[in-house]
Every structure is written in structure tokens, then in C-alpha cells.
């Protein structure tokens, strides 16, 4: 990104914060409804150890979810692309399961897997699994015709064709699936924490909300947002590396 764009981006953030402060000052909102940005920063500083501890828990859930979900999605897409039988068997189920809002499963996951880390990781896995599977599968089914012709005249076996042509050719699609997953994964973990947890940023936000510590809630939200952005940037870098002309 150019310096000019970075400066414009910073200006945007600054304007938003200024607007926030203006609303708080002009409407004279009490701090238990909407605290000003300075109060939120203060809460962030005062509670830094508390927030850091809960952040690490959420980060661990999200990262584990990302890795597991991506691996499962990769494996599913590859086996669907390889076997027409598997494709016909699983595709309707996959489409149907995508229509079910995964968030609705959070209470059941908590019931089955308990209040600990596991139910949140499972939630993140489920959320990442579908975008990764469907976009990677799409990419695998859209190998340029010419590449397949070439591999065909060269006498490639189906397995080697998949490994050496179709999978590498679909890497950009996998990258866009992962980018989507990176956006949704923190949401999954936080919703899991809302349903039932004793650790994590979602739990902290709910707790702060209940005790009318709105400044702390906003501080936790800010950290969550930063974490999501960081995760996205990391996956995006990975996606650039997976591009064919990189």
C-alpha cells in the first residue's frame, strides 16, 4: 500500500474516533451507555493484563479452528474432486448443511463438548470448513481445459493429474476460501464463548456488559477487532504467496 493510501486510512480512523467523541460530548451520554474513546483507552490500559489473558485464549481457539478447519476443508474438497461417487453422495448434504446457520449450533456444541476450549474450537472449525471446502472444490473443478488436455496426452494417471495439475491450479481459490474463513473464525469463537465459557474475549465482553463496565466491553471489542484484522492480513499474505505469479 502506498504512503498516500496509508495516510488516508489513518485519517479515516481519526475521523471516526472524532465523530465518536463528538457524539458522546454533544449528546452528553453517560459513560455506562457509551463511553468516549479516551475512557475506552484508559480501560484498556488499566485492565491490560486481564484483557491479554482472555485474548490469548480466544486467539488460541481461533488459530486451532483455522488450522483444523482448513485441513478438513482441504481434504474434503480433494476427495470430492477425485471421486465422482463421493461428489454425488456428499454434495447435497454439503449444500444443505451450508443453509443451516452454524451459530445456531453453538448451544448444542457447548452441551456436547463442554464449557472449555473444545466447543469454541469446534465452532470455529465448522465456520471455516464450509467456505474453504466450497471455494477450493470450485477451483479444483475449474482446471483450465488445456492443462487437462496436455496431461491427458502425456498419459497422466488421475491421481498424479490431481496432485500435479488440479491442486496447484486451484491454490488461488483455496486462498480466497481461507480469507473468508479468517473473517468468520473470530466470530465463531466469540459466539461460542457467549453461549458458555469462563475464559476468552467473548466471555469478558459479556461479563463487562453485565456489570455495566461498558468501557471495558469496548476495550475487549477493540482488541477482538485488531485480532481479526491481524489474522486477515496474515492469511492475505499467505494468499499472495500462493498466487501463481508470486
Amino acid at each position, binding site marked *: 500500500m502506498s504512503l498516500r493510501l496509508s495516510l488516508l486510512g489513518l485519517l479515516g480512523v481519526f475521523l471516526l474516533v472524532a465523530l465518536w467523541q463528538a457524539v458522546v460530548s454533544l449528546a452528553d451520554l453517560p459513560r455506562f451507555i457509551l463511553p468516549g474513546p479516551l475512557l475506552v483507552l484508559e480501560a484498556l490500559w488499566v485492565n491490560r493484563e486481564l484483557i491479554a489473558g482472555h485474548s490469548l485464549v480466544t486467539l488460541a481457539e481461533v488459530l486451532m479452528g483455522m488450522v483444523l478447519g482448513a485441513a478438513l476443508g482441504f481434504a474434503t474438497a480433494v476427495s470430492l474432486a477425485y471421486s465422482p461417487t463421493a461428489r454425488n453422495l456428499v454434495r447435497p448434504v454439503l449444500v444443505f448443511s451450508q443453509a443451516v446457520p452454524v451459530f445456531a449450533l453453538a448451544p448444542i456444541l457447548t452441551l456436547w463438548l463442554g464449557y472449555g476450549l473444545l466447543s469454541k474450537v469446534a465452532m470455529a472449525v465448522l465456520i471455516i470448513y464450509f467456505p474453504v471446502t466450497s471455494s477450493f472444490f470450485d477451483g479444483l473443478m475449474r482446471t483450465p481445459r*488445456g*492443462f487437462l*488436455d*496436455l*496431461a*491427458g*496426452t*502425456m*498419459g*497422466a*494417471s488421475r491421481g*498424479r*493429474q490431481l496432485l*500435479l*495439475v488440479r491442486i*496447484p*491450479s486451484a*491454490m488461488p481459490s483455496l486462498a480466497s476460501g481461507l480469507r473468508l474463513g479468517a473473517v468468520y473464525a473470530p466470530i465463531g469463537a466469540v459466539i461460542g464463548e457467549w453461549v458458555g465459557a469462563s475464559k476468552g474475549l467473548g466471555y469478558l465482553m459479556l461479563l463487562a456488559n453485565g456489570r455495566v463496565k461498558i468501557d471495558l466491553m469496548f476495550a475487549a471489542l477493540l482488541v477482538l477487532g485488531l485480532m481479526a484484522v491481524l489474522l486477515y492480513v496474515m492469511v492475505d499474505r499467505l494468499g499472495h504467496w500462493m498466487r*501463481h*505469479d508470486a
Partner: protein
Amino acid sequence: MVGRFAVHRNGNSKCAEFNDSGVVAMVESCMPSDTSAIGQGQAVAVAFRGGATLEGSVIFENLELLMPAGRWTSLLGHSGVGKTTILRLIAGLDAAVEFKGDIVASDGKPIGPRVAYMAQSDLLFPWASIRNNILAGARLRGEAHDTLRFDALLERTGLTGHADKRPHQLSGGQRQRAALARTLMENRPIILLDEPFASLDARTKAQMQDLASELLNGRTVLQVTHDPAEAARLGHRIYVMRRSGLHSEPVSDSIPPRQVDDPECLRVQGQLHRFLLEAG
């Protein structure tokens, strides 16, 4: 058994030629000086006879196309006349048409496994190095590759030093040369070319035509093209394909590649051009 292997001694690379009784000679380099060392199988003639329909409408019918063994056959025609369909049928690729007829090789063996194919787009895998692209056939079959042959081809196509680059780092001409090296790496007796030089500029195109004509010499080549000049330069035999059928244009005995300003070549080019312009 007769062959060559590389010998490295005191930092110098030499080549040992051997036969069943042992090493018989040491020569300076394993790089073959003539193209015949790049090798080819037994030349084979191919005959294509028949007709094709697509959803009931006729694409072509009663067509007879003969590719003489070890010769370059050019199939000229404007877009959409069904040239590529013929090529795909010979290659055994999905042509989406209903074909009635037969495609046979002079030795009666199947054609598909003996075909190497080169298309208008270079079809280099963008994620793989030039080396792995040229060796794609062996890699896709899980076979070991012939290193000497690879080095020789890299040199003949002027790509020495580019083996570890990716396709997007090469120019259009270099990419087509890499595609040619990949085609030759396959060492198949039948070569099918689907307008491989169509998107190159005039100079690069002429150079590629010379190189391909030289390196593919001795193989049975079918080249589909819409460029009369290309057919006139390269074909031992030239067919013009029109809606009404196939016309075989007589060509002089001169050996391709013919000079771009060769009068006979230009005459044939004009004749072919006229034929394309005429209705039918």
C-alpha cells in the same frame, strides 16, 4: 546397448560413448551437435477418414486427410471450420462431436499414446519452474527423466540458464520455446500442433517456425493453422479445409522451412490465400 554418459573429471565435463564391450570414445560434450541425437521413434503415417456431427448438424463429412510418415502436414482453414476438431480426434481428446470414420496409423498400433500436443496458449503451468514444465510428462507419469536429453533440449531451445525461472518471468517467444522443449521431451513420433505460433509477433513467429521445423524434422507432424504463410513455409503437404471439403495444394519438393521471401513459397502462399478467400 549403445549410448552416452557424462563424465566429470577435474571440473571438466566430457562425454563417454559406450557400447556392449565398454567405453569406446571420449568426446568433448554430451550436447548433441545435430538434432538427430535428440532422437525420435520409428516414423509412422496417419490416415484420418470420416465425418463429424455436432447435435445433428454436420461439421464435416467424407473427409480424407493423410499424414505421410516423418513429414510435416499443414491443415489450413479459417476459424470454426473444424480443424481443431480433427486434431482433437486424432489426439484422442474429448472433441464434443459425434465422429463416424476411422483414424489409423500405418503400423496399426494405437495413436493416442504416441502423440505429443502443443496448443496456441503455451500451457506452461504457472506455478512450476521451466524445468518442471519441460519435464511435465515424466513427472505426470511418475517416471525418471533423461537428464542428458533435458540439457540438450534446453540448449537447443536457447533456454539454458532459465530452467529455474517461472513462466511469467519469460517472454512470449521464450515461453513457446519452453513449450516446444516440453513437446520434444516427450519424444513421441506423432506431433499435433494447434496454431502454436498464432499469438507471436512476426519476427518471433518466423524464428519459432524455423526452430520447430528443424527440431521436429523426421516426426509425423500435423499443424493446424489459419496463416497461409505459415503453411507455405512449413508444410511438406498442405491441406486447405473449407465448408465444401478438403483441398490438397501441390507443394514443391523444397525442404521446409522455406525462406520467408522464397518466390515459390510466396506463390504457394498467394494461392492458399486465394483459396481461403473463395466462397465455399
